[in-house]
């Protein structure tokens, strides 16, 4: 306590020495009270969320934290998410089918999204309900409400009618995927943009009725319908309506001009004429005093980037510069379109690489915010550009930008998958083994499932770099993907044979591991094809030979027998080299019975197709086999090996493991050819009749 008081005194005394400084300081400090920042209810949550960075090495938080329920492939991730979403949809369906079961309101204020929607019938429908349905973007319900109102002769105000027309035109009379249905928006099929060349315009009769009713309003219904038609690919109808509007001198809005520019994509004309058409529309906009917006810029760049002409890049850059002078900055989608324009059909234009470098450098470390629908394609086209340039530094830069903050949310599931596929393609072309392992460990399996071609390159890199300890892990991962590519499996087995044959002390450790993996592989192959007709695990004769070697090196004797039987079933022939290596492995693992079994089995099954005598001769000369075995072999091969039989055979070890005994008994079963069907004695009908008569 006394210490505290003395400390305070000292402090006060020390400050007391400088009162003049206090005065000067207080006079200099200029306090600015910052203006109040309006905060929403979720702002704290968003701020907290920023403190947690994305971890691609673990599964997403939407899955249960349980090894049985975590997806290890993209396919599984998609399936689990959509399954959960389907469950939610099923519950909502139950609610909407039986609204009488969900009448209780225990929330205060009531949460409307949990409650069943009000039934649509003659008593309930009114303008408010229609407006609410339009605001909630429930297209089918809105149509139903409007039709019920019409049947009951209820009047609808023009502005609500116009809102309904705009809704129908914008969504082409289809229910959109609701915003809260994140799974369908991310993984669903409908997320893919429709093809502009295909006419998908529904031409709902209500649209035409509403349009005819609202024609007196002038501009708005025309704009809505023209935009809807062009966006849905109804080019002829849209053109007709546009001409009609121009004839009536109706003022069109910026959206119509934008969709007219986009419509030019599907016009088959020479590049100069097409460019002139775009300029013509822009001049029209200028004359009508309509200010272009970001969509205009994106539509123009989209259209120009699809035209094939030499000075495309300079034209695009000039256009972007001109728009920038008007105060319209290019969005991410614009960059994506420019990159797409520079890809070229056979080889990239010279401007692509500098362009990508500039864009990626300017965006480095930024958290990107989408401004336009086209922004979703940004990462996809950027990475495609990197692939065409075959530049690993650019691809890495692009990946870092993708993984930063919430930038990955820009792309949907399909685009994300393409993005990573392209990245790994560049990596396999340009990266060394160290790079490959670095990004493989970062992104596989939770962020992306690598395709079979990358694994092929990875296995080759393992071979070149003698990555002995890492190899079994890659094998396991590759078999987990379920993509059975013949070349990749062949490479994998070759590499495994090479690696397990290296003179390295580490090889002794991985031999049993790879042996068990090979054993699993061959058993999987046999089991997998039992109940599948069209799906096959590719396994050629060479691959089988490699597997046999691996099994022998990993002393998987039982599987070795299965492998040999499998080969004889599938009319495949083991090579002499393989048999030699198997016998060597038997020697290493001190299993003479197996060596004898293999030789006898090959002799009985493959007979004259294999030249086994040199192998047998070498074996007879060695001390590996005991006398009985040598005798056995001699009988089987009907040859005289008298020179070798006298040499110190008494020293050979006759005691062996019990399983080798069972193997030898097994061999006799196998060596016997298939049993013929027992002949059923034919009944002597004459005798039977005689017996009956007696």
């Amino acid at each position, binding site marked *: 306590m006394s210490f505290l008081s003395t400390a305070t005194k000292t402090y006060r005394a020390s400050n007391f020495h400088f009162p003049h400084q206090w005065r000067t300081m207080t006079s200099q400090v200029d306090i600015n009270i910052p203006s109040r920042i309006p905060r929403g209810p979720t702002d704290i949550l968003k701020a907290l969320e920023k403190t947690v960075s994305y971890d691609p090495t673990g599964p997403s938080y939407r899955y*249960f934290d*349980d*090894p*049985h*329920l975590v*997806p290890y492939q993209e396919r*599984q991730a998609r*399936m*689990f*998410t959509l*399954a*959960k*979403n*389907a*469950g*939610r*949809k*099923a*519950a*909502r369906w*139950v*609610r909407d089918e039986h609204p009488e079961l*969900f009448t*209780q*309101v*225990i*929330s205060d204020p*009531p*949460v409307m999204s*949990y*409650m069943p929607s009000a039934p649509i019938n003659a008593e309930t429908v009114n303008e408010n309900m229609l407006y609410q349905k339009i605001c909630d973007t429930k297209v089918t319900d809105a149509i139903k409400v409007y039709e019920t109102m019409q049947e009951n002769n209820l009047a609808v105000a023009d502005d609500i009618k116009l809102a309904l027309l705009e809704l129908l035109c914008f969504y082409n009379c289809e229910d959109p995927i609701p915003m809260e249905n994140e799974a369908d928006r991310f993984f669903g099929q409908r997320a893919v943009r429709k093809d502009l060349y295909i006419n998908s315009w529904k031409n709902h009769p209500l649209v035409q009725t509403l349009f005819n009713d609202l024609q007196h309003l002038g501009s708005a219904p025309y704009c809505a319908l023209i935009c809807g038609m062009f966006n849905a690919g109804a080019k002829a109808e849209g053109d007709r309506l546009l001409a009609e509007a121009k004839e009536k001198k109706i003022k069109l809005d910026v959206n119509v001009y934008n969709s007219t520019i986009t419509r030019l994509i599907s016009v088959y004309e020479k590049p100069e004429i097409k460019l002139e058409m775009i300029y013509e529309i822009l001049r029209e906009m200028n004359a009508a005093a309509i200010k272009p917006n970001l969509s205009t810029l994106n539509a123009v760049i989209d259209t120009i980037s699809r035209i094939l002409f030499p000075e495309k890049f300079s034209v695009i850059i000039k256009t972007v510069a001109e728009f920038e002078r008007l105060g319209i900055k290019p969005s991410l989608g614009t960059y994506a379109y420019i990159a797409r324009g520079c890809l070229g059909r056979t080889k990239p234009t010279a401007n692509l690489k500098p362009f990508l470098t500039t864009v990626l450098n300017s965006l480095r470390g930024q958290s990107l915010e989408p401004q336009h629908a086209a922004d979703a394609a940004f990462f996809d086209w950027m990475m495609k550009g990197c692939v065409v340039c075959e530049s690993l530094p650019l691809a890495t830069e692009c990946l870092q930008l993708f993984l930063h903050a919430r930038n990955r949310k820009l792309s949907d599931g399909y685009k994300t998958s393409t993005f990573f596929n392209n990245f790994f393609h560049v990596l396999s072309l340009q990266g060394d083994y160290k790079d490959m392992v670095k990004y493989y460990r970062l992104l596989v399996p939770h962020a992306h499932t690598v395709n079979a071609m990358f694994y092929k390159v990875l296995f080759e890199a393992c071979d070149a770099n003698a990555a002995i300890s890492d190899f079994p892990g890659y094998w396991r991962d590759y078999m987990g993907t379920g993509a059975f590519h013949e070349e990749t499996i062949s490479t994998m087995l070759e590499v495994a044979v090479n690696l397990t044959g290296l003179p390295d002390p580490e090889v002794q450790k991985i031999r049993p591991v790879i042996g068990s993996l090979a054993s699993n592989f061959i058993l999987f192959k046999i089991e997998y094809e039992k109940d599948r007709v069209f799906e096959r695990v590719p396994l050629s004769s060479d691959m089988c030979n490699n597997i046999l070697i691996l099994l022998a090196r990993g002393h998987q004797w039982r599987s070795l027998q299965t492998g040999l039987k499998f080969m004889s079933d599938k009319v495949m022939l083991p090579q002499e080299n393989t048999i030699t290596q198997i016998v060597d492995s038997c020697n290493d693992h001190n299993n003479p019975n197996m060596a004898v079994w293999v030789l006898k089995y090959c002799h009985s099954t493959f007979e004259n197709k294999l030249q086994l005598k040199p192998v047998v001769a070498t074996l007879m000369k060695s001390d590996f086999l005991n006398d009985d075995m040598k005798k056995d072999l001699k009988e089987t091969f009907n040859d005289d090996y008298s020179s070798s039989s006298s040499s110190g055979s008494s020293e050979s070890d006759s005691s062996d493991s019990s399983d080798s005994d069972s193997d030898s008994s097994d061999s006799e079963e196998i060596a016997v050819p298939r049993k013929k069907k027992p002949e059923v004695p034919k009944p002597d009908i004459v005798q039977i009749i005689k017996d009956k008569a007696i």
Partner: protein
Amino acid sequence: MALNVTKSVWKNVLLSRHGCALTLERSISTTPACNKISTGRYKPLEGRYQVLTYDQAIKPHELVHMKSWNTWNTSTLKGGRRSQLTTIEDMFIRRFIHGAWFCNTVGEQIIIKRQHNIIRIAFCVPKTVSPQNCYFITGFCEEMLSIWLHCPVKLEIQTTEPHEGYAKVINPQGLN
């Protein structure tokens, strides 16, 4: 009868730690049924084994020492609201989960935790249920309960082997 009374009294004496329950002086009781503490205690049966879940294996007096509660909420604290409603809802949730998962809840114990307006339901599922099924039923349960209870509901599932739901085996009488 007398023997039974003495037995139950002795049990009480042994169970009570600080002698706050019955003592020997007050052992004569005319209402033995009241003093008999048998709820939640499983005795050996005649001629058959009894397999107890983790929930059943722990006796009521061991509750806070060896195991926690199955329901977590603040409705029974001083000033807590809607205690009756919460209890009834919990019963409903337990039955709904049990039915929606086709009686696949390992050990038949479902833990319900309420935090703010979120209800978190935790239980174990055997590994025999495929993951895809698991996710479908999860989505269905979460949405269905949300619709009924008007608040976000989250399921927290762990998968176990089916036998892991049982913690204790009681031998038949005379076979100890």
